[in-house]
């Protein structure tokens, strides 16, 4: 990087870090309110049933119960969903999963709330339920929604796949499956609220998208915009699940009717039962190469189970289809992903929106092809990898910032070394080592739809700067990064900037903190606003310094001329003068990435303005006697465009790898069986590998200072790298996630490693 920046590219202290190490941040469960009522939801007893009657009379008689509400108490549109509206806040005539809420109880204590729940009598007419998406597609399957059981189908077609397969030298056809996954953010969902003196419902929420929450509450309760205020409380992780309205609607409903402070904190058990999961996928994939290993055709038929409601299912199907080729150039593409309703707990967004599931398939296929052709897994990825000038499956020409091969080259020395020395130095005869690669590409932002962000940067007449952004901070560091961007433009220290984040009364919509979009999109929005402000400061400085504007720069809190540090004027002085003249010191910024919607039949279009790329290498040791797997080390090279805050990027990569190890080896959510954290294992510190994070910076011309994103890309390559590592260790492949003790031991036995070994 040739340009020198003062804030961008530096790992400054995290905004709010001091508060966090003191335990001070106020999560929604911590907010002090005046004797808040406790809320609890009565949920369905059946996975699929008609509701004949709901009797709340007994519940209302219970000492301490202050209100019981059903769908009849919702004055507006009782339907939620950011993409398609199909999920009632409280069930009306039908329940479609065990997570469905039927009635809301507000009470003075937890105990009273529970007694209230138990005293609500619901008459059901049980309906046949279907849990498997393939079954749900059959004629005569129970119909879950009026429109049928297919929520959405995304096709991506390019060239002629049949022709490709005909010309192929090698064809590999396999089926892969992945499990439902629980996000397991450490803070179970929570919210709290009160009604202010103007009658506005004020709700503090653990959320990834306060402005969406606001919109939904206005619609649910038929209120005016100004009568709902969402404030993002400190939010203890989200990973996609806090994009849905988890407790916000219930808090709003209670406030609407009772007008006294309320709080709803999910127990971990309720968070497991009632919030979205990662879509389980079944992926049939057929890929073909020519004699040299060049991919010439990909055909994918995938089904993902969205459970009872859509949530982000359409986005998951769409993104997984677009990403089905992997980060490779493929001439002939025929991909179809179907998203299907069943009576499982609904599935929604989770870190990667279907791309991690698809990556298992395309990355396993790459290794299988390499094996058949006798070429190295790294070489086949280099041969096929996307580069500037490549056409994607949707026909998008990639014109810049394609750092995929840089990632592969960055991995190469570690890879060669690991294969050469690490694999063969195994300590006991009953352990086998393998090195696996996983690669990915990931479109930044929402798929082929507008997804703008807005922001405001304001300077007071005394020069103090405040950034107003609706961008929800989940811990990943967006507030710090946005602050750095503004600091860079204005030439001031990030410490001097106040950040107002996620409060719908003061901030404007930044869209969701999802799709790895906030650095790129909200980063550009704050940059736009800051540049407007910088422009008026520079204009004012021209008057004062009497030099051309293009020689002026903002640095160290001053406007100076390049090369003459003595000749400067403080921005506070400039701000005061602008203010006195009636000039504007508060600027709104906007950015929406340029995309072209995907053709509904062929998927052709420009789904994203830019892509992140990555390759990870996993060094895996398998115990052939027990099926235990140890991931010793992961080397992860990520093209992030530019790292605004390198240590935050590393933090995302390490966190993504950990989550990827869980996805690969141990995580599986089973409805009815997974009730508490005793039943669901996420990696502990002892389970995660050492991570060598390599930041590759292939500057994105439309990104703020060249930045793209990394949140989801961090996770995507890990599971395939681990699976490929296990395959290489055992010479036997696992096609289903997780690669549990059972599956790995079975693989070891099948491969002939279980038994007396020659040393």
């Amino acid at each position, binding site marked *: 990087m040739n340009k020198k920046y003062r804030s961008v590219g530096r790992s400054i202290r995290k905004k709010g870090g001091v508060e966090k190490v003191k335990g001070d941040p106020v999560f929604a469960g911590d907010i002090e309110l005046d004797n808040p009522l406790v809320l609890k939801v009565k949920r369905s007893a059946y996975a699929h049933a008609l509701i004949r009657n709901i009797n709340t009379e007994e519940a209302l008689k219970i000492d301490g119960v202050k209100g019981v509400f059903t769908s009849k108490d919702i004055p507006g549109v009782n339907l939620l969903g950011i993409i398609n509206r199909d999920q009632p806040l409280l069930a009306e005539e039908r329940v479609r999963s065990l997570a469905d809420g039927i009635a809301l109880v507000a009470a003075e204590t937890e*105990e009273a709330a529970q007694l209230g729940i138990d005293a609500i009598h619901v008459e059901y007419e049980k309906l046949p339920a279907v849990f498997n998406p393939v079954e749900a597609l059959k004629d005569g399957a129970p119909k879950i929604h009026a429109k049928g059981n297919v929520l959405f189908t995304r096709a991506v077609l390019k060239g002629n796949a049949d022709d490709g397969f005909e010309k192929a030298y090698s064809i590999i056809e396999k089926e892969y499956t992945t499990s439902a996954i629980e996000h397991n953010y450490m803070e179970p969902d929570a919210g709290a609220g009160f009604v202010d003196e103007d009658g506005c419902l004020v709700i503090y929420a653990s959320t990834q998208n306060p402005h969406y929450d606001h919109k939904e509450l206005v619609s649910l309760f038929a209120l005016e915009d100004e009568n709902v205020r969402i404030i993002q409380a400190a939010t203890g992780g989200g990973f996609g699940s806090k994009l849905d309205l988890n407790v916000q609607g219930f808090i709003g409903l209670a406030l609407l009717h009772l007008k006294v402070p309320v709080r709803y904190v999910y127990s971990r058990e309720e968070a497991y039962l009632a919030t979205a999961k990662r879509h389980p996928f079944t992926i049939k994939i057929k890929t073909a190469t020519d004699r040299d290993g060049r991919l010439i055709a990909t055909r994918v038929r995938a089904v993902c189970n969205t459970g009872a409601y859509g949530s982000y299912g359409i986005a998951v199907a769409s993104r997984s289809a677009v990403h089905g080729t992997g980060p490779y150039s493929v001439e002939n593409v025929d991909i179809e992903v179907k998203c299907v309703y069943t009576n499982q707990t609904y599935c929604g967004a989770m870190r990667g929106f279907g791309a991690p599931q698809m990556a298992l398939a395309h990355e396993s296929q790459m290794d299988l092809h390499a094996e058949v052709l006798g070429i190295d897994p790294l070489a086949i990825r280099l041969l096929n990898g996307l580069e500037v000038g490549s056409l994607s499956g949707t026909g998008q020409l990639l014109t810049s910032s394609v750092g995929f091969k840089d990632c592969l080259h960055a991995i190469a020395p570690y890879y060669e070394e690991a294969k050469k020395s690490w694999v063969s130095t195994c300590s006991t005869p*009953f352990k086998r080592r393998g090195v696996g690669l996983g690669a990915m590409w990931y479109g930044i932002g929402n798929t082929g739809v507008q997804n703008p962000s807005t922001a405001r940067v304001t300077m007071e007449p005394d020069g103090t700067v405040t950034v107003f952004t609706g961008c929800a901070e989940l811990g990943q560091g967006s507030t710090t990064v946005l602050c750095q961007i503004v600091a860079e433009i204005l030439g001031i220290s990030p410490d001097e900037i106040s950040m107002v984040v996620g409060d719908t009364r003061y901030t404007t919509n930044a869209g969701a903190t999802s799709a790895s979009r906030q650095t790129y999109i909200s980063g550009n929005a704050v940059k736009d606003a800051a540049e407007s402000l910088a422009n008026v400061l520079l204009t004012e400085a021209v008057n004062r310094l009497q030099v051309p504007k293009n020689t002026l720069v903002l640095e160290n809190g001053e406007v100076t001329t390049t090369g003459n540090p003595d000749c400067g004027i403080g921005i506070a002085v400039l701000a005061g003068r602008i203010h006195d003249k009636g000039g504007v010191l508060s600027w709104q910024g906007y950015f929406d990435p340029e995309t072209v919607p995907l053709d509904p039949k062929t998927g052709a279009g420009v789904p994203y303005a830019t892509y992140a790329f990555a390759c990870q290498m996993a060094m895996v040791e398998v115990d052939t*006697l*027990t099926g235990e797997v140890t991931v010793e080390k992961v080397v992860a090279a990520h093209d992030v465009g530019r790292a605004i805050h390198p240590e935050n990027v590393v933090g995302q990569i390490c966190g993504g790898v950990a989550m990827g190890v869980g996805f690969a080896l*141990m995580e599986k959510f089973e409805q009815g069986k997974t009730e508490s954290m*005793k039943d669901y*294992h996420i990696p502990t510190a*002892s*389970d995660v590998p050492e991570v060598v994070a390599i930041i590759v910076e292939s500057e994105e011309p439309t990104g703020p200072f060249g930045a793209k994103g990394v949140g989801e890309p961090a996770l995507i390559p890990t599971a395939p790298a681990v699976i490929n590592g296990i395959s290489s260790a055992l010479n036997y492949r696992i096609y289903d996630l997780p690669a549990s003790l*059972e599956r790995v031991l079975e693989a070891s036995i099948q491969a002939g490693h279980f038994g007396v070994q020659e040393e």
Partner: protein
Amino acid sequence: MNMNYVRPRDLAEAFAFLAENGRDTTIIAGGTDVMVDLRSGELDTRFLLDISRLDELKGIRLEGENLVVGATTTLSDIYHSELLTQYAPALQKSAYNFASTQIRNVATIGGNVAHCSPCGDTVPPLVIHETKVVFSGKKGERRIPIEEVATGPYRCFLEKDEIITAFILKPVEADFADFQKIGRRKDLAISRLSMAVMVDRDSDGIISSMKFSLGACTPTPHRMTAVEEFMTGKKVTCELLFEGGKLLAEKMIEITGRRPSIIYKEPAVQGLFVRMLYPVV
């Protein structure tokens, strides 16, 4: 919740309380199992009798021929005990692998045994040390072999007016002793299977004695004497370990029948047996 908390000053007071209220009382020591059951609603009790402060129940000591471990000795104390390093290293290792630091700091060996989870990690090592568990009450004490404490999963032989006060182990300085377990992750995992072993060999490397117990696979703990007998008198080779492991799996299935989890456990107990004893080869 109409639960009462009772903290006796000494053991005699605890016995007296139980003699009176035993039927309505649950004993709490470290609380790591009781608190989970209270939260889930599985446990509803009128009295919680807190024995965690009773000094009479703490400590690890040699008493004549016996190694005595007090019932409220925590897993952390077990892990740090030099006496156990010398005389019961497998028990010590089971504490090393137990749950998490926070849980080891309060969870007690008595609680682990009394909970009668088939997955209790301290049980297989206690079995190989031919442990007698001391059940005490106002009426006196009785000593029960560790294998008989659990009458089934989560069902304890203890009478309602009794407390487990101590464990009496045979101290052994074996040539080789170990405890191993397999869980779904590397720490903070419930054992899918576990085992404890002690082996002595003569100068020719022939096994002169072996004690072996399997955990987490059978409803109640078992010492696997058939496996011990099979291995004793033989020189340990890799082949022998696989044969011994196979026999172990057969004996396990004789007890449990062919449940779905056997598909994994059958080879895995064999595998873990081989892995654990491989250093002896």
